[in-house]
């Protein structure tokens, strides 16, 4: 067990695997399938101050090796999350990473303030990168100064550590990463979805009602790996890596790139048991390859002094 245990700000994890925000709801559906205590942590669906209905349907479309989504931050609102969803999850011994979203800085601040008081919320994931909400959201993710200012405001309001979730739709992600680190972020989540579109040949219109959607799944893994490789060399806060993870081998690739934990998103739709399966597979690989601790792998693709262990 201890070979996989990871300690990150606010997140004391049995293993480095958590379901990604938006791909696991608030855990209820998966709790019917397996014991959530197996998970390293849980990133819950983005929470906004008010309840949101989100975008019209269709909200998802399939693409080669990936999918597009434009849910539009549908969620039951802060009050319901605090009074109904989080108490359900408190039955489990799993740290919760509360993904928060908003339109204005004040929205974010209020949600952070409230949600960080919930007893089982041990960290906040500041979603400055949702591509599917028109106002706000995305611009927070592309301008380093705005991103830094928001991070600072949320840090002040939050009672728990704050991870900033970065958008890949930028010219230079290291710039944003460095800015939010300096503004006090305790960690980074990388990456959110790439902005994409599919057009239906029959209707001649975008498949997704919102027109554009966020691209996730295996197709984006090389982009995520590249960004984590770059950012992890520039910051000293930990990175939760995500984008197309489907197997324990994918997890190892993320660690080598520079991630300290990972989130599994779209793969939960393909195989709802994927998280516990990856955790088990990881245990096996640790023994097989005689890796002392998974944290030994962090950033090893760019760290110069090391003895390769995966090839043993």
């Amino acid at each position: 067990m201890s070979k996989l245990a990871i300690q990150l700000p606010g997140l004391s994890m049995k293993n480095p695997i958590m379901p990604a925000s938006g791909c696991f709801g608030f855990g209820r559906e998966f709790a019917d399938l397996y014991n959530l205590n197996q998970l390293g942590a849980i990133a819950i669906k983005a929470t906004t101050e008010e309840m949101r209905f989100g975008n019209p349907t269709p909200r998802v479309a399939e693409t080669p090796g990936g999918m597009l989504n434009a849910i539009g931050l549908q969620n039951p609102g802060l009050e319901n999350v605090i009074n109904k969803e989080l108490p359900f999850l408190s039955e489990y011994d799993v740290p919760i990473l509360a993904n928060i979203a908003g339109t204005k800085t004040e929205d974010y601040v209020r949600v952070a303030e409230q949600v960080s008081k919930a007893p089982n919320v041990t960290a906040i994931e500041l979603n400055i990168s949702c591509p599917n909400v028109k106002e706000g959201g995305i611009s927070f993710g592309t301008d380093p100064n705005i991103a830094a200012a928001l991070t600072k405001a949320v840090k002040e309001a939050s009672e728990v550590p704050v991870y900033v979730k970065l958008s890949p739709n930028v010219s230079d992600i290291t710039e944003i990463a460095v800015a939010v680190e300096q503004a006090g972020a305790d960690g980074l989540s990388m990456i959110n979805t790439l902005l994409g579109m599919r057009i239906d040949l029959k209707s001649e219109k975008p498949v997704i009602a919102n027109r554009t959607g966020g691209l996730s799944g295996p197709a984006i893994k090389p982009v995520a790996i590249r960004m984590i490789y770059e950012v992890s060399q520039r910051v000293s806060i930990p990175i939760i890596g995500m984008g197309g993870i489907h197997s324990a081998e994918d997890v190892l690739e993320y660690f080598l790139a520079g991630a300290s934990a990972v989130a599994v998103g779209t793969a939960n739709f393909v195989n709802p048991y994927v998280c516990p399966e990856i955790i088990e597979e990881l245990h096996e690989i640790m023994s097989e390859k005689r890796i002392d601790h998974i944290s030994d792998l962090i950033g090893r693709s760019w760290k110069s002094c090391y003895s390769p262990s995966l090839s043993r």
Partner: protein
Amino acid sequence: MTIVHNRQIANQIFEMTFTGELVSKMTEPGQFLHIRVGDQVIPLLRRPISICDVDLEEKRCTILYRAEGEGTKLLSNKRVGDSLDVLGPLGNGFPLHSVVEGETAILIGGGIGIPPLYYLSKQLVQRNVRVKHILGFATRKDAFYVNKFEQLGETAVTTIDGSLGYQGFVTDYVNHENPAFDVLFTCGPTQMMKAIEEQMNPNRGYYSFEERMGCGIGACFACVCPVKNDSTGHEYRKVCSDGPVFPQGVIQL
């Protein structure tokens, strides 16, 4: 699950039967299965397909599907003996208790919306409910399972071009024949169900909905639809886990 057979039965329509332990849970007509059509990440997502028939003793389930897109075409290439990755049964089906012995249920299906009505009809007949079927197809070539439905009860077929049965849409038939019934069960294109609702406005009516899905289990909010006459603008139901079958008046058609 292991595939027992997979063959074409009409224009683009395939019938697949598979067997496995999971089948013993497939007791509710109108529920669906979330099927992985390949071994790789292309196509990535599962395909929702309704349960069409179940043999609980033999642990066999039959589905009917239209091989049109990438995923369903792959499904049609599967061979006998291949294994099939099936999640389910999922969702809430047609409530059998909504109709009692001696009453008449009318089952109206359009095209590839027809399959779940077969398992429903079989179970209603077992409960001594009288069943009437109205099955709408585009043409004779697209028609399937007509004989099977006829064995269970009165069955009217409509085709748009008149090449089989009544010429027109199911709604034209209903307009013309005005069939008597106690409960309505329907599955098909939303346009069809909308016309049926307006025309028949039943006291007891159950509608099976379709929506593009991600997870299929209620976690991703992909498949939501707005509730009828909702003043708040926030109310919704998930087709995958609250539906796919909803009673009259719940969902905005």
